[in-house]
C-alpha cells in the first residue's frame, strides 16, 4: 500500500491515504505511511493536518483518537490518554513546550488525502 517511490531529488513523495470525505470533521484517523504511524485531522473549517500518532506522554499510538478543537486561534488535539494538548500546526505541546509531535505536510489530490513523511 505504500508503493509510491521518490521520483527525483527535491521532489516530495506523496502517499495517498483515503478519500477526503471519509474524514469526520474534528476527528482524527490513523494511517500507516512507510512504516510510520501518522494521525490525520480534518478541522471544522476544512483544513487538513498530519502529526505523529504516538502520544509522547504515554508512549501509545493513539493521537488520532484525541478530541480536536481550538485553544485561542490554534487548532489543537488533546491526547486521549491524559489530555495534554498539542498544536496541529506546529506539533508543539501547549502544556509542555519541550515536547512535540512530528508534523507532516498534507494535500488533497482529486479528492484523495495525501501525506508526505520524508
Amino acid at each position, binding site marked *: 500500500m505504500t508503493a509510491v517511490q521518490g521520483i527525483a531529488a527535491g521532489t516530495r513523495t506523496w502517499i495517498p491515504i483515503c478519500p477526503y470525505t471519509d474524514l469526520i470533521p474534528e476527528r482524527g484517523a490513523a494511517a500507516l505511511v512507510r512504516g510510520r504511524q501518522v494521525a490525520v485531522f480534518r478541522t471544522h473549517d476544512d483544513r487538513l493536518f498530519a502529526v505523529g500518532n504516538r502520544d509522547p506522554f504515554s508512549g*501509545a499510538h493513539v493521537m488520532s483518537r484525541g478530541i480536536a478543537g481550538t485553544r485561542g486561534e490554534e487548532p489543537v488535539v488533546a491526547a486521549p490518554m491524559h489530555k495534554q494538548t498539542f498544536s496541529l500546526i506546529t506539533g508543539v505541546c501547549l502544556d509542555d513546550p519541550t515536547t512535540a509531535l512530528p508534523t507532516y505536510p498534507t494535500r488533497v489530490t482529486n479528492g484523495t488525502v495525501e501525506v508526505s513523511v520524508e
Partner: protein
Amino acid sequence: MNVVVVGYGPTAHRLVETLAAKGFTGSITVIGEEPRPAYDRVALTSYLSGTGAEALTYPVPGGIATRLADRVTAVDREGRTVTTRSGHVQPYDVLVLATGSAPFVPPVPGAEGAFVYRTIEDLDAIRDASREAEAGVVVGGGLLGLEAADALRGLGLATHVVEMAGRLMPRQVDEGGGAVLRKHVEGLGITVHTGVGLDRLEDGRVLLADGTAIEAGVVVFSAGVRPRDELARQAGLEVGARGGVAVDEGMRTSDPSIYAVGECALAGGVVYGLVAPCNAMAEVAADRILGGRAVFAGADQSAKLKLLGVDVASFGELSGALDVTYMDPVSGVYKKLFVSDDARTLLGGICVGDATPYATLRPLVGRELPAAPGDLLFAGTSVTVELPDDAPVCTCNNVTRGQVRAAVAEHGCTDVAAVKKCTRAGTTCGSCVPALASILASEGVVQSKALCEHFDHSRPELFDIARVRGISTFSRLIAEHGRGRGCDICKPVVASILASLNNGHVLEGERAALQDTNDHFLANIQKNGTYSVVPRIPGGEITPEKLIVIGEVARDFGLYTKITGGQRIDLFGARVEQLPDIWKRLVEAGFESGHAYGKALRTVKSCVGSAWCRYGVQDSVGMAIALEMRYRGLRSPHKLKSAVSGCARECAEARSKDFGIIATETGWNLYVGGNGGFTPRHADLLANDLSDEELVRAIDRFLMFYIRTADRLQRTSAWVESIGLDYLREVILRDSLGICADLDAAMARHVATYFDEWRATLDDPEKLRRFVSFVNAPGIPDPSIVFETERGQIKPVLVEVGRS
C-alpha cells in the same frame, strides 16, 4: 564567577533555580550522586503508586551544567577544586554544599539486609523485595516511618511498625494525639509496637528487645536521618557536635567561599528536616552569591500531613502554660492548643484526625487569639479569623497573606492556579490551597463558573440552554453561546447533555466528534492503546450459558479476563478493529453494552436476597435487575452506581453508591449520595419504607434532577452535599419547585427510547467504518501493540516513554 554545587536534591534545585531566575551571569555546575536531576522527594511515595520518575523530576534550569551519578570525594580549599569518584576535577570560586542527609541505620546485627526509604532506587529495591515477601517491618514510627509503612501496605504486605518511644510520631504529637493516631493506624490493619527497641534481624525475621519475633521478608529502617557532613569534616570545615555543617545567618561555612544549605546545614544550632526551611536557606545563599544581604533567621517547623488517610498537624510550640484539649475518641479526633498563661496568645497546637484548625490558626502563632481557645477548637472553621498581612499562609514557600492579596489586587490573579504561579504558594505540599481559595474569596474574587475558554456557562446552565431552546447540535450551541471550536473539556460535556436530552445514538452525525475516546469506540482505552469490553450483567446475575459465551469470546480473541468490582466481567486487550467482531458474538448471545466507558449508569449490584438468604426480607436481585434495566444507558454528569441489599446486613454495600436501596420488613429504604473512590462518603437516607412504585418514582426524580443541575464530573455525593438533603427532599418528594411532572416525563422518555448502542452500531456500516487501526490499511493491526504472558493471560508490554 564559577559556582559549583555538591549534591542535587531539592535544596540544590531551589538554589540554582533562584540563581537562574535572578539573572546570575557566571557559570553553575551541579554534581549529584543520584543518576537523575533533583526530584520531588516529598512526593517520593507516589512513585510506588505509579507516578513516573520523570514526572517527579524537576526540570534543569537552562544554562546549568550537571554531572550526574558521580560523587564528590574531596575538596581542596587551597586550590579551590573538588574531585569526584570518577577522577573528574572541577575548579570553583564559590562552593555550595547541598548534600542533604542519609538515613540512619542503627548498628544492630543483620541490619545490612534491610532497606532505607530516601531515593527512587531505594523504592525500586523495596518493591522488588516485596514481590517475594508477605510481611514487612518498618523500624521507626515517625513521620517517614508511617509513610514507609503505608507504602509497604500498598505493596500488599502485612505491615508492622516498631517505635522505640512510647507513641507514634513522638516529635510531632503528644501522648493523647499519639493514642488517637495509633487507633487510626491500627484500624488500617497495621500492627504497632511502641516502647520497644530492636534486638537483631535474622533472615526473614525481626527480633524485638522484648523477645517478640516478627516473620518479615522486608525490613525498612526509618529511624531518623543524619546530615551528610563527611566532605565538610574531611575539608576541615566547622561541624556541629551532633553533626551538620555549621553556617552563619548568610549560610556561609567557616570558609567564606563555601556555603552549606538544606538538610546538611546546621543553622542557628538547628538541623532542619523539612523542605520549607531548606528552600529558605537556598534562597538566602542565592541572594548572598548575587551580592545581597539576606539572612536566614530560623524557620517554622510546623507540619501538616495526610498519613494513611489521617490528618496530622502540629505547629508552633508543643508546650505552654495553659492548654485546651478537644477529644472525640469515637470519631478519632484529637485537638490541642497551647496558649500563654493569660490565655490570650497562641503558642502552638496539635491536631489528629481533623486538621481544619491548622490553616486558620497556624498563622496566628505568637499573636493574640481572635476568640476563646475552646471556641476555636470546637467550632473548627466556622469562626472566621481575619489574618494580618504578614501572617504566613504557605510555609513551604514562605508566602504571606499580604503577598497573596497583592497577587490578587496588583497582579490580577483570579483563581488559585494563577495565585500559585504568581507567588509559588501552594506548589509544594498543597496544604495551604484551601487557605488560598478563602483569601481569594475574601478579596471579593468570584470564582469563575465558566466551563472552559469556549463557554462562559456552567454545565447546568448549558443544560438549561440546550433544553429550553431545543438545541441539539454542538455547532449551534457553540456558535450561539460560546466561541472557538471547543476542546476536550466542553465537547464531552455537551455530548453528555445532548445524550441526556435526546436519547439518540452517541455516534450519530456530528456527535461522533464530541466523544472522548471511550465513548467514541464504545469501550475503555487501556495504557497501550487497546480497549476493554464490559457486557452488562444486570444485578450480577448470569446464566451458565452466558458465562460460557464470555469465556469462549475471551479465548477466541485472546483477551485478558477479570471479575470486576461491579459484579461483572471485563475483557481486556482488544484492538479497535476487533471490537465489532467481539460485540457481534456477544450481542448474538443476548448481551448488551454495559456502558463501562460512559458517564452513565454502570451497575446495580445486589446481594442474593430473600430468594436464598436466610436473613433476606425482600427480593434484592429482582429489584436490582429491574432498576438496572430501567436506567441502563442513562447519560449523566458523571457515572452512576447503585446497589440493592436484601436486609440491613447490607452485603451489597448499597450505602457506598449514588443511590442505594436496603430492604426493610415492609418495603425499601432509599439512600443517596454515596461514593467510594477518591473521597468516600456514606449515602444519606432520603426516604424510608417505600413501596416498589414509590421507590422507582423517587429514584427517577433524583436522577433527572441530578442530571439537570450537577456540575461537570460532579458525582452525586458532592452534588447532594452542595444542595443539601432537606432541599432535595423538598424538590423531589414534595415538589416544591413544581418540576416533578417534568422530571417524571423525562425519565419516561428515556425508558421508552432506550436501545443498545452496540447493537445499533453493528447494524450501521457507516459507524462500523471507524473501527480500524489504519484508514489506509484496514487489514493491518497496530504493530506497536505487543503482549507478554503473566499467570497464563496476556499483559501489555510496556511501551517506552521518551519525549522528543
